[in-house]
């Protein structure tokens, strides 16, 4: 029973990683860039939801929509201001810009909302806690909600990318940006849309993250962001189901490692597993194998 409850804890942590990883992997898959500011967009989304609930007195659904809307605007702005001018630059330049953007967002949050931690209200998610085996095993409403949200987002994203015209454009841009442009696809608009969707997902992830772990500070997004990036690589970066599987596995490994090996080595175990997986499958669990032309 203790093992089961640890497994549930792992699942709840992993589902949070997974939902963040979805945003990472989607932007990487299409724009072929690592948006290290993703974790900080999550933090901004959580702050917006916090303000909407505490200061503006909005109901939870409106708070969610406000956070998604403002994050979408933020995502498009970041892409337009910081990443678009670097479209032709080396990927290293874009990566450094993304890291800079991450610091910018953190420090802006520090200016706007101050350094004191805030505690995210628990009203966002009203699902009751599920008790199994006569109260011995508890699955919180937040965990169930996160897993449901994960599955829903995964299905919607996959359908969107494989069935719609914009999705098709995204796949084209992902495959060969130059050729896509020659075929009359507006690459800038496609990438902007990708960022818009990624940032709206970040707002959802921020709210779920802070519903599970309510301490909200300007650095709240950074460590979960790094872990989720690891999860995306673990699952095969660019693959949407891979992000979900990678996130959940990472959470379960972290919790079981802490519970049965050592609380001190929890993070070390996570990254050791990542190294081992990458040694045997360099593109991650569900990543496309890279064919080398000789």
């Amino acid at each position, binding site marked *: 029973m*203790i093992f089961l*409850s*640890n497994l549930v*804890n792992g699942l*709840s*942590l992993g589902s949070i990683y997974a939902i963040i990883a979805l945003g990472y992997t989607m932007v990487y898959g299409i724009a072929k860039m690592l948006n290290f500011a993703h974790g900080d967009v999550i933090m901004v989304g959580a702050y917006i939801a*916090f303000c909407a609930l*505490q200061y503006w007195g909005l109901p939870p659904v409106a708070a969610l929509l406000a956070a998604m809307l403002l994050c979408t605007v933020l995502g498009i702005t970041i892409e337009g201001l910081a990443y678009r001018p670097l479209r032709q630059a080396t990927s290293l330049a874009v990566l450094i810009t993304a890291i800079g953007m991450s610091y910018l967002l953190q420090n802006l949050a*520090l200016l706007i909302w*101050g*350094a*004191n*931690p*805030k*505690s*995210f*209200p*628990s009203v966002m998610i009203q699902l009751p*806690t599920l008790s199994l085996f006569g*109260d011995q095993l*508890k699955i*919180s409403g937040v965990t169930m909600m996160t897993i449901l949200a994960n599955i829903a987002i995964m299905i919607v994203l996959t359908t969107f990318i494989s069935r719609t015209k914009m999705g098709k454009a995204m796949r084209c841009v992902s495959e060969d940006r130059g050729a896509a442009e020659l075929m009359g696809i507006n690459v800038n608009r496609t990438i902007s849309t990708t960022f818009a969707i990624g940032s709206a997902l970040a707002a959802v992830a921020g709210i779920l993250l802070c519903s599970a*772990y*309510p*301490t*909200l*500070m300007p*650095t709240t997004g950074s*460590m*979960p962001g790094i872990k989720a990036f690891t999860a995306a690589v673990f699952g095969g970066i660019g693959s949407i189901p891979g992000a979900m599987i990678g996130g959940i596995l990472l959470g379960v490994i*972290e*919790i079981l490692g*802490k*519970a049965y090996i050592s*609380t*001190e080595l*929890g*993070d070390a175990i996570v990254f050791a597993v990542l190294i081992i997986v990458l040694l045997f499958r360099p593109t991650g669990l569900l990543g496309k194998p890279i064919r080398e032309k000789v």
Partner: protein
Amino acid sequence: MKKLVALMLALTLGLSVFAFAGAEETITLKIAHIGPLTGAAAVYGVATSRGAKIAAEEISAAGGKYKVEIIDEDDTHDAEKAVYAYGDALDKGAQMIIGTTTTTPCIAVGAEAYNDRVFMLTPSASSTAVTADKDNVYQVCFTDPAQGAASAAYIAEKNLPTKVAVIYNNADAYSTGIYQTFVDKAQEVGLEIVSTTTFTDDTTDFSVQVADAKNNGAELVFLPIYYTPASQILLNASSIDYKPVFFGVDGMDGILSIEGFDTSLAEGVMLLTPFSADAQDELTKNFVAKYQELYNEIPNQFAADAYDGVYALVAAAEKAGVQEGDAPEAICDAMIAAMQEIEVTGVTGTMTWAANGEVSKTPTAVIIENGAYVGFNN
């Protein structure tokens, strides 16, 4: 040319006599406060800054020998920034330091101050590493070992549950310091430690630690940690219906001022502190009333420590005969000698200091009831 030089000399002499005459009446002590005014530990630094300023205003208004001017510096709880803040304070003419508020920056600034011979009194940096091998650094708060040992002794003495779990931050000198002395003392007084788990600064998930305490049947959870992770631990415990006694130390102080925090989670949490805002003595009542009037908040232990610290510095300065504009290195040795002779009664009790910089005063515990600290008597 000679005339000009003579004139200049005369002028300088005249001015210095004038300055001296002015100093005879009231002497302005320039005290630097260094602490995290922004950043994750800002709750502590803002509290010590406010406490120090209230004391400075009171002393200046009382019209005694000294007026106090506080030079406020922000170190963001970062050792490197704290050293810059320290240099900046000296440039602004600081003669002594009330600070730094938190342990890690205090160790860094202490090393600089030891070399420069600047007298430091920290309100709240409680590690022994703060005062170790430095004759110029003194503390208003208990040391970590004293907090750990005093907590264990207190738990045993007040017949609190004896099956104890400890969750501490093993990436933090403050937390590990308290943990070690707690464990030593716990064995001595017959507490049984059934679960020991750790975390680091980046940890967001505490489900394993809380579950371990619960599964091992701990009835009291000792949390020698800061309040931000503690708030997460309280939430985790409530989500699995685990209701032990939570016992914290001074880092727990501040948990009630987290914006949006559901204070009912902290109901029944105990913390060891020498200061309780609801104490009925005149000193405390006056301090709490002033603090509430100015900042609309009940002062925590950090504010109280800094308040007492400024009074202690002024008492020591008087004994050491500090004069207007004395350089910090000129008065350091006299301050060290004076500090060991004075006895100060403040809002955190009656304090005397040993040569190693440690304070001696009596610890008490408070318990959180209906979202406020209440003195604990059992």
